[in-house]
């Protein structure tokens, strides 16, 4: 059994493949993982979550509510103002990066990710 580190991460991605990989990577590192299939669901899961997650990893390109809108919506809620939010996407377009930054993202990881770098990233933002 992996030792729990007592940190909860919300992952938001419409790809079940990606969700599966994230869950495996994060749970393998001892994190508690909750998931949402798009921005709308992510927001629901976030608000229903108890305890509140320590960090969020979100995709950009999703149906219904995309990553930018999701980050913005989360940031609009006072209690999540400082919640670290990392974008995980295949894109590395500087404009999009700037937009993510502007809406309040904490970091940007390019897919495909390695477990090590993902865990390192979360460790940094949740340290």
């Amino acid at each position: 059994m992996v030792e729990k580190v007592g940190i909860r991460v919300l992952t938001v991605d419409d790809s079940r493949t990606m969700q599966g990989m994230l869950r495996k990577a994060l749970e393998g590192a001892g994190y508690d993982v909750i998931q949402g299939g798009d921005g709308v669901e992510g927001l629901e899961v976030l608000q229903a979550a108890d305890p509140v997650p320590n960090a969020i990893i979100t995709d950009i390109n999703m149906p219904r509510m995309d990553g930018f809108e999701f980050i913005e919506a989360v940031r609009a809620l006072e209690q999540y103002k400082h919640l670290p939010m990392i974008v995980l996407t295949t894109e590395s377009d500087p404009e999009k990066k700037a937009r993510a930054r502007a809406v309040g993202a904490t970091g940007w990881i390019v897919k495909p990710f390695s477990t090590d770098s993902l865990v390192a990233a979360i460790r940094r933002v949740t340290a």
Partner: protein
Amino acid sequence: MSGDMDDILLVFFQECEEQLQELERGLSALSDGESGKETINAVFRAVHSVKGGAASFGLENLVRFAHVFESSLDGLRSGRVAPTPEIVKTFLKAMDVLSDLVAEAQGGATVDTGRIEESRAELQAIIGEGSGGAQPQQDDTVPADFTPVPVDFEPVMADFDFGDFGFDEEEAPAAASLVVTFSPHTAMYDRGDDARNLLIGLADVAVAHGGTSTVTCETAALPALAAMETEKSYLSWRVVLPAAVPEESVHAVFDWVSDVCDVTITRDGGSGPSGGESAPEAAAAPATPEPPVPEPSAPVAAPLEATPVAASPEPQKPAAPPSIADKIMAELPPAPTPAATAPIAAGNTTARRPVEQATIRVDLHRVDDLMDLVGELVIAQAALESIGQREDGGQQEMIKRIASMKTLTRDIQDAVMAVRAQPVRSVFQRMQRVVREACSMTSKDVVLTLEGEDTEVDRTLVEKLSDPLTHMLRNAVDHGIESAEARIAAGKSPTGQILLSAGHRSGRILITIKDDGGGINRERVLATAIKRGIIAPDAVLTDDEINNLIFAPGFSTAATVSDLSGRGVGMDVVKQAILGLGGRVTISSVEGQGTTFCLSLPLTLAVLDGMLIVAAGSTMVVPVSSVVETMMVNHKDIYMLPDGANVVSIRGACMPLIPLASELGLGGYGSGGLSEEDVILVVENESGARAALIVEDIRDQAQVVIKSIEKNYRQMSGVSAATILGDGSVSLILDVPALVANALGRIDTRPSDVRTGLAA
């Protein structure tokens, strides 16, 4: 561990399948002129998702192609490209390539490189990109240090922007250590960025270059505690990094926050003491509007002797030193090399194939319905129990309860079937591609219209429909639809129309394939059938019978054997497949106006409506669908033919009389020893030919659950399956068409002769 990955890979392929369907749907909407934002986004997202997942598994061929595809779709999304019919066609072609690449990744056939290149070039042409077809990938998608990863997680590339690990930089030759000063604006903290992350990022860079970082916190700007504003930024830092660290790596760390902090980077020549405010800019740097105060989340603890080196043993072994990675990429020609993915395709995936469709996704409400019914079943059972315990036995009550239990059982059966039911859409949409390919091979222009894609059938049926439909649609394009010239000459539009529709009819599913082509040329069919010895030269056949000849084994009317069909196996195989599913095929054709094929199939392969009959003392099941009528035996109507076979005349129509018991080898009747009690079942096979089966009795009509006899015993001619009856006994389900064919085959080998024999 790897088991997990296999699971995820399975999910990925499943998802690819869904995305490809989504893509197909979107593209056909586009080609119908529906170019709404949602449609385009959905199309884009489908390709994007495939790419994202593929990248995670190191499926390079797939990623590269998906990337180019995605870029062109992005052109569409941004409005730079309009969805003209030509462009949509290019996308459709690309979709086919993409779907083949997915299949390849799953262990399927290797996709022809020429096809990929061609499609790639077309895609790039759309957005006016490098016609050379050379390295399409920019910094994104396939990053330079992307190495094909065997199906395991390990070192796929990651790029954490606000703290690039910097292992992808050249060693800096200068021996001078790098001094970084960094002072965040209040805005940085407002945004939720943490100075600590940046310091850790720098420490990581230092570690990556084999050294450590030394951090000094600059607290001079801190006001007195009373004057401190908690949300303001007062601190700045000075970080000394090893000489080997290139400046770019430092920039990368601050990339994310460059607009909300001041950063200076200087090389400390080693000669000049690196004391205090050595960097002149450092003085200017903290010229932030407000005087500093530690922000809550910033580490206030003054001189942070950052040796997080040991504290954060982040396992980032310089995964792939850039030079090597570059070499790998250089060795990879722009065209996807099969070799690159070979280990994946050949190794892990092949074994996975059979499992691929092992899961289904079900609407939650259907499962809820089932749950409700099961709840009722539990209640009904409790009621029965309580009746059983009553003094008087409660006979009447019991009977009533059992009756309601029967309804309930039926409902549960329906509910379970609903869970297994799937819309035929997935198969129907695949047919678009079949028609597209058939068109390009025959240089015809055909539009396939789908109707009733939401019609639901048992999932096993859905899967098994694919092959027969493929054959039939190829045939429709190849033989059904005429050449454009012939069509124009006949006063039709040069574009052929094929309609593929599905619907429910009296408990069966009806699939129709209708083309507006030339129709069946009966004279030619007849001539061919005679030439091939399928029928006797003097046989007299009805139009319907002639139409049905195209299903005969070894029949082909195509003047030349084309690439596509015309090997004369197609329709025969189609018929066998449909029969195997308990279905029927009928044809109607009007010369000059087209041909319609109707497939009628059972909704499920799990249950059938059966007639319980008795032959040689055993109870057997005849599918109700094959029984036309039943009647008592009347000796006057039975005639014996010279060869010893019997025929029965029913209202003037003669048909072979087959004693079931002896046909099954169970004895019972000698030659024609019929009893007055016997019953005749008039049965009909798929082509409408009738025969009379003699059975001893009809017991009941009931729904029976089909149990494979092949799986538990072996295949038997004339018996399609077995079932368990209410009394617990095992009973055989008869394969009527096969039985009849066997019996007639024994009378004579060729149907035409039977016919002439009957006529005599």
